[in-house]
Structure formats: C-alpha cells, structure tokens
C-alpha cells in the first residue's frame, strides 16, 4: 500500500487514502470499513470522525472570503 496521502478538499472534508492508522484520542483503533475515508473538519458531522456531508448544510468554507470591495462613496 502507498504512503498515506491527505487531500484537503475545498469547503469539505480531509480525504485520507493509502497506508494509515486511525485511532481515538486514547489510542484505541477507530473501526474503519473502507480504504479511503473522509474525515470531518467542519465539526458538524453526526458520524465523527467521518464526514457525513453536513458541511454543505452549515455553509462551511475553507477559503477566506473574498476581500470586501472598497466603495469610495460609502459613508
């Protein structure tokens, strides 16, 4: 198996594939049923540490919002 690769998906989860081990905060193995997993990073998933797509409902953004346009006429 290849070395682990983590894809930081724009506005979405961390996609992890390759050779890696997933453990809880206490070092217990987290059961994983598929080779490639998506890890929640919006904090709203109901199946953490995995992603369940909820980031789409909470408007999670990974990129900084575009700089506000400067309007010289604004008071």
């Amino acid at each position, binding site marked *: 198996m290849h070395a682990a690769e983590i894809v930081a*998906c724009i506005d*979405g989860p961390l*996609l992890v594939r390759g050779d890696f081990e997933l453990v809880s905060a206490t070092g217990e193995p987290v059961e994983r049923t*598929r080779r490639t997993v998506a890890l929640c990073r919006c904090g709203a998933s109901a199946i953490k540490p*995995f992603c*369940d*797509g909820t980031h*789409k409902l909470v408007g999670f953004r990974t990129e900084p919002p575009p700089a506000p346009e400067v309007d010289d006429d604004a008071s």
Partner: protein
Amino acid sequence: MEVARSIGAGSSGADRSEGRFAAPPFSARGPVSEQLLAALRRPTADADETLAGFSGTIADALTQTDDIARDDDLQLALLILHGLHYGSVVDADEDWEWHPETVAARVAIERAFERELRDRVSSVPLPAPDAEAVASALFELTKPTPGPSVARFVAKHATNEQAREYVVLRSVYTLKEADAQTWSIPRLNGRAKAALVEIQADEYGGGRPERMHSAIFARTMRELGLDDSYGAYLDAVPAITIASFTMMSMFGLNRRLRGASAGHYAAYEMTSSLPNRMLGDGFRRLGYGEEVTDYFDEHVEADAVHEQIAGRDLAGGLAEHEPSLVPDIMFGAAASMMVDGWAAERTLQEWEAGRSALRQALHADRRAALEEVS
C-alpha cells in the same frame, strides 16, 4: 460428436433451442415492449419472423410519444434492451445482446431519449476545464435545497407501506447499483479512471461480496419481506423511475457519452449522503433495525467519500484530460437532477394525495403478494 455439437451450440443450449425461454416476472406496456418480450421467448434464429416490422413499430412509437421519459412502453423496452447487456433481466438467448435488430432498437430509442434530455435540461454555467472549478460547479448545481423531498417525507411521515414502496421504486437501479457506471471504466484514462475504480471498489464491497452495495440493498428488501430477484416488482414501477435507470445505462454504455456518465455519477453521489441519513432515520422511526437501515447508513459515510472523488478526480480529472467534455459533464449532472427530480415529484404527489406511488396497473397477484407481507 454430440458433445462437440452442444459445445458449439453455445448459449442457446439444447433445452432452449425450441424457444422455451421463461416468461419474465413483468408484462409488456405497449406494442414495442410486447413484440420485444415475445421475440425474446424465442431464439435469435427466429428473428425474421418474431421481429418482423419491429423498426417500424419503434419509429411509430417514437413519433407518437411527446414525453419519452414518461412513456411506459418505450422505457420498459429500453430497460429490457439494456438488460441484455447486464443479464438477470430477461431469460433469453444470449445472442440477442449483439443481434443487429436489438442493437438497432436500443440505439433508436436511446438517440430519441438523449435528444429529449438535451432539449429539456436547464442550461447551466460551464466551468473552466479545471478539476477544482468543475467540482465546485457540480457542488453548486447539487447543493441541498430546503422544502419537501422524498427523503424528508420518509424521515418524518411515511407509513410502513410507503416506506416499502420507496424500496420497491429504488430496486430498479439499486439491485444493480454501480453497474451502469462500471461500463465507462475502459473509456477513461489516468486520473479519471483511477478515481472511478476507487469508487467502484468500495461500491462492490472492497473484496467482500456481502458488503457489495447491491447485496446490502437486497438484504434490506428481504428483511422487509420483499422479493429481491430483479424485476419482481417492475410492473409496479412507473416509467419515470425506469427512465432514471435507463438514462444512466445509456450514459455508461455509449463511449461518446463518457462525459455525461461522469457528470451524472458525481451529481448522484453529491445528492446521496444527506438524504440517506434521513431515509435511515425514517426506517428507524418505523421500528426497523440495523438489518434494514444498514444500506442507508452505509451510504451516509460512503457517499461523503465518493462525492469528493467523483467531483474532483472523476469529473474534474476527465475535464482536465478532455476539456471538450465539460459541456457533457454538466449535461449529465443536470440530467440526473432533472429526471430524478421528476420521479421524486411524482412519488411525493401521490403520497401527499394519499395514493400509492406505484403504478395502478400492478398485477393483482403481485399486489396481493405486496400486501400479504406488509
């Protein structure tokens, strides 16, 4: 000598050479499917007789219909013709798969269906042929919307019978889940091909046949007391639900439509995790256990992975490799949303009016079988 002959006879083996192919568990819905089903009971050798005038019958049906996606006869015929490639739809002489008459029939219906989809699909802004731009455009097209949906209805309101109807409707595709997209694997290259294979390996259970998604769904059907053999309830399924499946089979089986297939699959995966969560909740609300909800729960996690790979690497990777396919990628995604939207709209309308979402022309014995186990 006898042995050599029977080996040479191939798939249309001795016991079937007299035309004894089993009748399918579903009925014709008009002249096209009627002639096709009758012909498939007999060997290809009788095609001159059994399919006499068939191209004319199809041409007439195509002229007369004003809505192929909701045309019972044409959609059923197309499902049967695709079924010759898949297997397990009709018991028939295997030579029918590439018989010139059946191939011509399939292409004639597909071309008209594709034309109708292209005419009716809403135009969507085309992203640059860049993987992130394509993924972002697909996520935008498929973003969750508030308001009524079949999944919300199942979560909150569905009766036991309505929940079972949902599973019957879904079985047309899901008993063959992922197979339609597998057709397109050899038509892709590089990043897009690797992405599709990565998704499909997971769909097919990652080496464990019992975890194959179609097998998990079949278990859900059995747990609900439903027959999991393909086509057992096809008579109960309206044309528009069949169209959802024939559309993806058409996209998968035609190399020319590989862009549409990739876009369709991405949109399908992107609209799966959140609704499956609600569907699982609906079946739990009705008192079903893990044996029934496993299918839906599995898709919450699986499709949150698949949607990222399908958007960025399958559709996005294909767009970077073949920029001319960007319009078809977006067409496939928009067609998926449109046709599945029509089917869902119909189901909701019937349920909200207190009617069955299944076809009324359901055979009495099949209806009895459905009611008996409920």
